[in-house]
């Protein structure tokens, strides 16, 4: 992340992340779709930043060329980078924008990897979670569904990204804050260190 973070964005920012481990070409294709780009533009977005992963450069370049050949949706910039080993906090914060003005509040579109979703939740930026249907195990879908049910995120589907965008613009103002407030019978607020304390014999349980 270099110039993009310094340059002030004209409007809202959409940050797309596919994670560091697995490829997710279908998500990159989905966000390049003409319909989706136009929907973003009309919702007041000026920039899309795509983290496309180690093997996504070829696809990103190809789609960028095709995008530029299309009738222009101006002003709308699409930039990309492969990954940032220092984490994606800077991009997430750029997407979050400053203040509570609707014009500056962007979104994150994330694969359903727990690390990326947690980062977005911690930064406090509205996030559309898109599970990768090509992964054999569907636990990513379960995570997206469970979080969407509790109004933390919007569960996006590859074939209906514009729908997810509409949904998040409605939900944006009532998305719940992260982390969940401890309440109810199960919350001893002891965390893992409390469990470790029990196991090794620090039984005093004193928290200073």
């Amino acid at each position, binding site marked *: 992340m270099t110039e993009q973070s310094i340059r002030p964005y004209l409007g809202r920012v959409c940050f797309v992340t596919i994670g560091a481990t697995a490829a997710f070409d279908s998500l990159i294709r989905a966000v390049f779709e003409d319909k989706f780009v136009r929907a973003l533009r009309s919702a007041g977005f000026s920039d899309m930043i795509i983290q496309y992963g180690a093997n996504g450069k070829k696809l990103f370049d190809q789609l960028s060329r095709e995008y530029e050949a299309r009738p222009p949706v101006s002003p709308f910039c699409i930039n990309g980078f492969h990954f940032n080993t220092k984490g994606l906090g800077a991009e997430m914060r750029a997407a979050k924008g400053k203040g509570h003005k609707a014009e500056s509040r962007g979104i994150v579109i994330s694969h*359903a990897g727990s690390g990326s979703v*947690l980062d977005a939740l911690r930064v406090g930026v509205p996030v559309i979670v898109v599970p990768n249907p090509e992964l054999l195990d569907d636990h990513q879908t379960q995570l997206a569904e469970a979080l969407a049910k509790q109004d933390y995120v919007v569960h996006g589907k590859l074939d209906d990204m514009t729908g997810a965008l509409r949904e998040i613009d409605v939900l944006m103002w009532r998305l719940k804050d992260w982390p969940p407030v401890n309440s109810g019978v199960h*919350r001893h607020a002891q965390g*893992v260190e409390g469990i470790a304390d029990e196991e*090794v014999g620090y039984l005093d349980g004193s928290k200073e």
Partner: protein
Amino acid sequence: MIPTPYFLQACLTLFVITIIAATARAISILPPRPVRRKRARGTPTSMMMVLGSGGHTAEMLAIQRDLDPSKYTHRFWVIGEEDWMSRAKAVEFEEGLVEKVMKSQRERKEEEVSASKELGDGEAKFWYVGPDSYDIFLVPRARKIHQPLYTTPWTALLCLWACLKFLCHCKAAPCPKTTSGFTGPLPVYAFPDVILVNGPATATILVYATLILRFFNFRSAESQGGMRTIYIESWARVKTLSLSGKLLLRVVDRFVVQWPDLEGIGGRGEYHGVVVG
């Protein structure tokens, strides 16, 4: 030479006895284990943590963000050989601990940083931070991404061997001064007191390595009661356990899940809310 029937009979009997004895032994080392003696602050206590990669590393570090180095006086980090990112993050974490302590020291206008005295609520407390208070063990990865399945047993064995080796070479946590009544000679090597693991294959193998050591009570691994294992299922697992979770459900001392649907799974899942928050 044809073995006599008596010889065969003896062999068979011996075999059956071995099986029975091994099963009994296995049952005896599996949880629940006896509760440990109460431990006072200032007792050298070591904690081992496995940083798998990517998401696993991020979750483990989030779990540990409030780690109290005055309780867990020595940390062992287990990291994949080629996982530079996790290695950097472990070092960064330890440096963060130093910074935290230095900050609180500055606030209290104390001078010594490592193992120095801090007065809080009338209780003397010691901090154990800095390069002497942690070790990093590098292990060959049990299974690389996209590694063909049929070569996995071999790499898993290499990983198991590496785990056994470094478990036996954990330096005993140093204990320069103590006010809390810990006396007695310090051993050179000591197994870690508690081991925190989450999903990566390496972590699963490490837990099985501790079981092997305890099974044979190697260097009193079992009778000392150390190597308590805590497994934290990934926050990404909402309704079903991961493969590592399934493999470790019956053998770890504590099994922590992060979604209510998994509470009580296998009679073991504990739910304390989201611990990676």
